[in-house]
Every structure is written in structure tokens, then in C-alpha cells.
């Protein structure tokens, strides 16, 4: 073997042994590939670099073949997967950049900083495309709140998400939270950012131009989160809790300055490329930018500004210190770049250059400590397609049914509204600034967030959704269902879905039943996205979400954006006028398998979730957008967890800060059918929404529904303020005072969070 390029160990660096290879989570096949690639034993610095880039987080070694099957094209696509964020076309030369990312493992160890830096990271992904972030969303999964540690994690995560976006001045416009025992010890924190740019100003993270300069901009490099990327790619065990890498601490203040400086550098045309130093820090940013540009790079770690003296090249290359950017620029621009950074109180430091030999080279004080063929470093990790097979446990779970229905369905609704997964999330989003930037059309608490694009008449609708219980019970249906629910939420506001970003949170892919969940859920997402014409423009994979008790429920969070052509036509989610007609859109078949009713009231996580009807979903989406265009709807709210009864209650209860809540009288009896009472009230068939309108518009809406091939049932009328919610079916009547429902719904989470202190020490 002859070495492709020579590197020598940094003085004091340990020689690479099998033990050290194992510590770096590289398996024998991968190590062999490294030896073949280099033609010699790697230095420790090189091994660290490989270990980071060949981690699941960076290489997608278990998932790439599956992700390739997502639809990625469409007339609206400006930038598909592969860049820092996806970009879709909006009217009038505008475009939207958006992406979702997980920060699960860091949040399990340090909830506040883990969540905060998750938001910080995803914001950088968006503004490095040249987009100004206009909204943040978050999808959270936690263990039940009767456990003190879960309360501690929940409180810290919410505070972390909020503080970061609040300080940056970016509204957090939506999200979801749900609770299930599988997330105890392994919470999920997925953050999505949405930004707006002029399509012409898009910039990509491709280093080109031999001789161009690499600069770091922003914070200094410390020993934070070294090996975060490989940490994110292993099971959470007591052992890894102890290993606690240096926690990454977020500084949203510096990030705000970095945001302004970056946008000025990009829109001013000062730079060639820019990428944030996220997972695997300087290593992944420089290697990926070089590989995308088909060039080599040389980084001089001794020039990188550090927070502590004596940091080694290994540490500098792998540090995950936050709020740092890597910029590529032509040499004659460096002074101007420094001036822009100075205006924002930031430092820009030249640390390397673009080379013509395709080698990823690290030097320190004139000594070459790493020299790796760059393209292979990024693309050369062995790929795996592990066996995928559904487990018997999963099959029998799907066959499960509860012993009997609840005796009292009125009480069942109250129990559902008191379930933290369904209850109002006001406690969460009141900690998130939802109105900064003054463009929020629909704040949190609606079906989807909507933000106006400043200076235009249109807005961007956005949501994140996933019913993990459905995915657990049937990964294919559940995957489709997540996309369908997201699209429904978007459509309820009157917007049309445009595209998707996804965050695939799963357990250990090396286990066949987990890999089965992954493959099937992705197939479902892909099929739904194809049917809706909403391409996947990017996303994130988080595997190894396990705790000692097993894997999390498969949670492929779908982030979706849509276009609302006229923000003044946005449709709210809740009833607004007494005497309005209540319409149920879509067919009710009474599927209660996999429902929240079974899980929360009958303590049965089982059954087959309702099959997703993609055609019916599309018809509903188009109807909702058409009806909104014609200003026919007073409100629209999708049916999801808890089915019709929960949706009706929510429409009556009103928004989080409503001073008026309405009664309603609904008659299900006029629909002669075989659906059970529980099926009507709590079944979770998709492709449905509850709308209200001026009674004068009912006929027109029914005609419109007919043209879309959509069922549109008149159910009853919105009642007076502070009266009862009444549902009748034949000789049965269920009745709830709306103010009682509201109190249950609003108090569920605060009551639990106040119950006992958060206990940081319990583990």
C-alpha cells in the first residue's frame, strides 16, 4: 500500500489502536475502508474526522438508500435535499427556505442547553441559505408528566426553545407536544426553522475557486460537545450519561449578530459560500463544502481562535461550539468581510484555503496532521441496508382490542381533554414569542402557524405533525398519516401545501423490527408526498433513540409549509359567531383502532390505525383552499387525535386567550349508519375537518364539496357564549358546559407542572 497523502501525528497524540478505533464507534469494515483509502494508518486527528463524518448523523449510512426514494422534484423546488436547507418558490421572486432538525440526545443530558442549541443550529441552516428566518416550530416528545425527571426535562426544553427564538427575535409559530412512556429518558426535540429570501439571492454551501480563503466568523472554539455527532449516533445508556461530553452552551445574542452579519455578507455578494459549523463542527462544514465544490481544502487549526489555550487539532476539528460559521471568499474580499463582521461586533479569521488537489488537509503550526481524499471522506462511508422485518409483538399489537368501550362517553371526552398530549399547549407556547416581527397572521393555538411575507399580500403556513402511535401500530399508514395531517393543518388555514421537511426519529436501525419501521414509515411519507405534490426538500435522521427499556415509538415528524395567497383570507380554527352552521367535511367510518380514546381512556395502545385515503385527503385540501379563497368559511379545524368530539370541543373552547367560548348543538342522528357511538365521537378517520360558516353559505359550500367529491354534512349550529356543547344521536345526548371543558383543557398541563418540583438530580 502506498499512502495517498502523508500526515503525521500531532505531538502527544495517542497512536491509533484497535481500542481507540472502537472508542470512535467505527466498526472493522469501516476501519478497513479507512486503511484502504489512506494507504496507511490514520493519525488520531484523522480517525476523529472519520468518526464524525462516518457517523450516522453525517453519513446516513443506514438510511441513504431509503431516503433516495422520497420525491424531491416539482415546479416549486428551487433547492432540494443536500444543502443546509430546502428552498421552494413563492410568488413574485420570493422563496421560502426551511428545514427541521433533531437535538434529542443533547436535550436528554441537558434539556435547556440541548433544546436551545437545537433551535440555534436549525436557524443557522436557514440563514446560511441567504434567507431571513421568520418563524420557528418545535416538535417535542416526552415521558409522562407524573415523573419528576420528565417534568424537569419538559420545563427545561420548553424554556430552551423559547429563550433562543425569543432572544433572536424570531416568532415560534407552532409545534406539537405529546407524551408517552417510551420517551422517558429519551425525549425528542425537533426544531424547524422557516426563512424567506429573494430567489435570486440564494447561496449554496459549495467551496469553489482554488486559492479562495476559508474564514471562521463568530464565536471562539472551545471544548464543547466534542464528538457530539457520534454521541448522537449511539444508544442512550447509563454509560453515555456518564460520558457526558462537554455540554454545548447556546448564546443567542451572538447568534443574532451572526445572523445579521451573515445576511449582509450574502446579500452584499462578499462571499462565495457559507456553512454553519453544526454537528462535527469545523470538520463537517469544511469537508462538505469542499466535496460539494469538488475541490480540496487546507485548514490551519493553529489559526482558529480558541476559547482555551492548548487545544489540539483533534479538539479544534471536532468541537461543536455554537454560533460559528465557515465562510469561503475570494482573497481580495477579506478586508471587506472583516469590516462587515466588525460592524456586528464579530471576528472573522482566515484559517485556510481552497486547494486543487482534492485533499482534505489539516495543518497545525506547519505540520500536516491530517490528509484525506476529500470526496471519499464525505461519500466513502460503507453503506448498510440492514434486514427489515416486522416483529411478532408489533403484529399482535395491531390485532389488539380493548375489553369494552367506556361506559360514560361524556366522561371519556373530559378525560381526553385532560390528557397532556391532547390538552391545550398554552403553557408551552406562552413562553414563546409568537408576535415579534409583526407578521404573525396565525399564532400558536391554530391549526397551522401563518406568517406574512413582509411587503407582499401572501403568507407562509407551516406545521409539524406526527402521530407516533399510528406509526408504531402501522408504520406505512402512520407515515402517510403524518403527511396527511400536516397537509390538513395547512389547508385548514386556507393555504395550499407546498413541500415537506422531515425529522426521522427512530430506535436502533441495526435491529430488524426498528429498521422495518423506518423503511415502511418512509415509504408512507414518500407515497403521501407524491400524491399531494409536496416534495421532500430535506430533513434529518435521528437513530438510536433507545433507553434501557427499549426503543422509542417510531416518530417521523413531518414539517410542512404551504402558501396562503392572501393573508387577509386566512381561516381561523375556532368558532366565532353564535348561530353559525357547523359542517363536518369528509366521511366518518368509525375507526377507533390506534386512537387516543383507546390509549388514554381504555389504556390500550393497539389496533390498526385508520387507513389513509390519499385521494380523499387531497380533495379535502383543495376544498378548504377553494372555500377560503371565496371567503365562505368562518373557521376550519382538522380532525386528528381524539376525533370529532375533541375537535368540536376545541372549536367551542376557542383560542388560548379567547374571552368568548361557544356552546354548540350537533345532531349525528340524521346519519343512519353502522358507526358506533365511540366511533363517531372518538374515531380518528383522516381526511376530515370541522368547519363553521354563515348559514347562508351552507348550500354553496355543499355544492363546492360535491365538485371535489367530498362529503359535507351539516351537523348543527354554534350556540351562545358560555353555554353547553351538546351532541345528540338518536335517543342519546351528551352534554358538557363549555366553560368546564375549557378549564379541563387549559389546566391539564399547568396542573401537572405545578404538582411537584422539577428534580434535576433524579436519573
Amino acid at each position: 500500500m502506498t499512502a495517498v497523502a502523508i500526515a503525521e501525528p500531532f505531538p502527544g497524540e495517542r497512536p491509533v489502536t484497535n481500542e481507540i478505533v472502537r472508542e470512535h464507534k467505527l466498526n472493522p469494515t469501516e476501519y478497513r475502508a479507512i486503511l484502504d483509502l489512506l494507504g496507511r494508518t490514520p493519525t488520531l486527528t484523522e480517525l476523529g474526522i472519520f468518526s464524525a463524518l462516518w457517523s450516522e448523523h453525517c453519513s446516513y449510512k443506514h438510511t441513504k438508500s431509503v431516503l433516495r426514494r422520497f420525491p424531491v422534484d416539482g415546479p416549486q423546488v428551487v433547492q432540494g435535499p443536500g444543502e443546509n436547507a430546502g428552498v421552494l418558490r413563492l410568488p413574485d421572486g420570493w422563496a421560502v427556505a426551511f428545514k427541521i432538525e433533531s437535538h434529542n440526545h443533547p436535550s436528554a443530558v441537558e434539556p435547556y442547553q440541548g433544546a436551545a442549541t437545537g433551535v440555534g443550529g436549525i436557524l443557522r441552516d436557514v440563514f446560511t441559505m441567504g434567507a431571513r428566518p421568520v418563524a420557528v416550530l418545535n416538535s417535542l416528545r416526552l415521558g409522562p408528566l407524573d415523573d419528576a425527571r420528565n417534568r424537569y426535562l419538559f420545563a427545561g426544553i420548553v424554556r430552551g426553545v423559547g429563550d433562543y427564538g425569543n432572544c433572536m427575535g424570531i416568532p415560534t409559530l407552532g409545534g406539537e407536544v405529546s407524551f408517552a412512556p417510551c420517551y422517558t429518558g429519551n425525549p425528542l426535540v425537533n426544531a424547524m426553522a422557516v426563512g424567506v429570501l429573494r430567489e435570486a439571492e440564494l447561496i449554496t454551501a459549495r467551496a469553489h475557486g482554488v486559492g479562495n480563503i476559508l474564514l471562521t466568523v463568530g464565536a471562539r472554539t472551545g471544548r464543547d460537545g466534542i464528538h457530539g455527532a457520534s454521541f448522537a449516533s449511539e444508544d442512550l445508556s447509563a454509560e453515555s450519561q456518564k460520558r457526558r461530553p462537554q455540554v454545548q452552551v447556546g448564546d443567542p445574542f451572538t447568534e443574532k449578530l451572526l445572523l445579521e452579519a451573515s445576511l449582509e455578507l450574502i446579500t452584499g455578494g462578499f462571499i462565495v459560500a457559507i456553512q454553519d459549523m453544526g454537528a462535527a463542527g469545523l470538520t463537517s462544514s469544511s469537508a462538505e463544502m469542499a466535496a460539494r465544490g469538488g475541490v480540496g481544502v487546507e485548514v490551519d487549526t493553529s489559526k482558529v481562535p480558541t476559547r482555551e489555550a492548548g487545544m489540539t487539532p483533534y479538539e479544534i476539528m471536532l468541537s461543536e461550539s455554537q454560533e460559528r460559521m465557515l465562510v469561503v471568499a475570494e482573497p481580495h474580499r477579506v478586508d471587506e468581510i472583516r469590516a462587515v463582521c466588525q460592524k456586528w461586533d464579530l471576528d472573522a479569521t482566515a484559517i485556510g484555503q481552497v486547494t486543487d488537489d482534492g485533499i482534505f488537509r489539516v495543518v497545525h503550526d506547519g505540520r500536516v496532521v491530517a490528509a484525506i481524499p476529500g470526496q471519499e471522506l464525505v461519500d466513502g462511508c460503507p453503506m448498510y441496508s440492514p434486514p427489515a422485518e416486522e416483529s411478532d409483538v408489533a403484529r399482535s399489537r395491531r390485532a389488539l382490542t380493548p375489553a369494552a368501550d367506556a361506559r360514560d362517553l361524556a366522561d371519556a371526552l373530559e378525560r381526553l381533554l385532560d390528557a397532556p398530549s391532547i390538552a391545550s399547549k398554552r403553557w408551552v407556547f406562552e413562553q414563546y414569542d409568537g408576535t415579534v416581527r409583526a407578521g404573525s397572521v396565525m399564532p400558536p393555538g391554530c391549526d397551522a402557524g401563518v406568517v406574512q411575507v413582509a411587503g407582499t399580500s401572501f403568507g407562509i403556513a407551516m406545521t409539524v405533525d406526527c402521530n407516533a402511535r399510528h406509526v408504531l401500530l402501522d408504520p406505512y399508514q402512520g407515515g402517510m398519516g403524518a403527511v396527511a395531517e400536516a397537509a390538513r393543518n395547512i389547508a385548514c388555514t386556507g393555504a395550499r401545501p407546498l413541500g415537506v421537511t422531515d425529522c426521522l426519529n427512530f430506535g436502533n436501525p441495526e435491529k430488524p423490527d426498528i429498521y422495518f419501521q423506518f423503511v415502511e414509515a418512509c415509504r408512507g411519507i414518500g407515497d403521501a408526498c407524491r400524491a399531494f405534490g409536496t416534495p421532500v426538500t430535506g430533513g434529518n435522521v435521528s437513530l438510536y433513540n433507545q433507553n434501557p427499556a427499549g426503543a422509542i415509538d417510531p416518530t417521523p415528524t413531518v414539517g410542512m409549509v404551504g402558501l396562503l395567497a392572501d393573508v387577509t383570507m386566512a381561516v381561523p380554527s375556532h368558532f366565532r359567531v353564535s348561530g353559525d352552521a357547523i359542517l363536518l367535511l369528509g366521511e366518518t367510518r368509525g375507526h377507533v383502532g390506534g386512537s387516543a380514546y383507546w390509549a388514554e381512556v381504555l389504556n390500550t395502545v393497539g389496533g390498526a390505525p385508520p387507513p389513509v385515503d390519499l385521494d380523499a385527503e387531497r380533495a379535502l385540501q383543495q376544498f378548504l383552499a377553494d372555500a377560503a379563497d371565496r371567503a365562505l368559511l368562518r373557521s376550519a379545524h382538522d380532525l386528528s387525535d381524539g376525533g370529532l368530539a375533541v375537535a368540536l370541543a376545541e372549536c367551542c373552547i376557542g383560542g388560548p386567550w379567547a374571552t368568548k367560548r361557544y356552546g354548540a348543538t350537533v345532531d349525528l342522528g340524521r346519519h343512519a349508519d353502522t358507526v358506533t357511538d365511540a366511533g363517531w365521537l372518538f374515531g380518528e378517520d383522516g381526511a376530515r375537518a370541522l368547519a363553521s360558516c354563515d348559514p347562508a353559505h351552507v348550500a354553496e359550500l355543499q355544492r363546492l364539496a360535491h365538485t371535489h367529491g367530498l362529503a359535507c354534512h351539516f351537523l348543527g349550529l354554534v350556540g351562545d357564549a358560555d353555554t353547553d356543547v351538546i351532541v345528540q344521536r338518536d335517543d342519546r345526548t351528551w352534554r358538557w358546559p363549555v366553560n368546564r371543558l375549557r378549564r379541563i383543557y387549559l389546566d391539564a398541563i399547568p396542573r401537572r407542572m405545578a404538582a411537584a418540583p422539577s428534580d434535576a438530580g433524579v436519573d
Partner: protein
Amino acid sequence: MKIRVHVRIIPRTGLLDPEGQAIAHALSALGFAGVGDVRVGKAIEMTVEATSPDAAEASVRTMCERLLANPVTEDFSIKVERA
């Protein structure tokens, strides 16, 4: 007896302390030269009912470990007022 206890909770060395940095900056802008390594944490004071100062200290130590300090990011120290 009632014993007054003072707790200091400071971010671990090595961890970024953006607040400390901002304060260091502000002090130097105000003309205070030669200020370095500023770290900002919490000061907590409380009165504890205990049989002895040592017992008070032990009890507050447990409070720190369980609630007051974040074991992942913070170090703490305790001082007991001995009358």
C-alpha cells in the same frame, strides 16, 4: 437551631459563559481595565432548621445536588454562617 446558609452556583470551567463574556466586555467598555475570566452564576441564601451547622451544610448539599444546581453544567459551594 436556625442557621443561615449561603450557596454559590457557578457554571463549570470550560463551559461557555456568554453572560460572563458580556459582562467582561461591558466592564472594559466602562473603562475597567484588567478584568478577566468573568463567570456568572447564582447566589442563594436560606435559613435552615438543623441540629448543627454541619447538619445544615449536609442538608443544603443534598438540596444542591437534587434541585438547586444543575449537575451537568454547574459547580456549587456552600458556606454556613456560624454564629
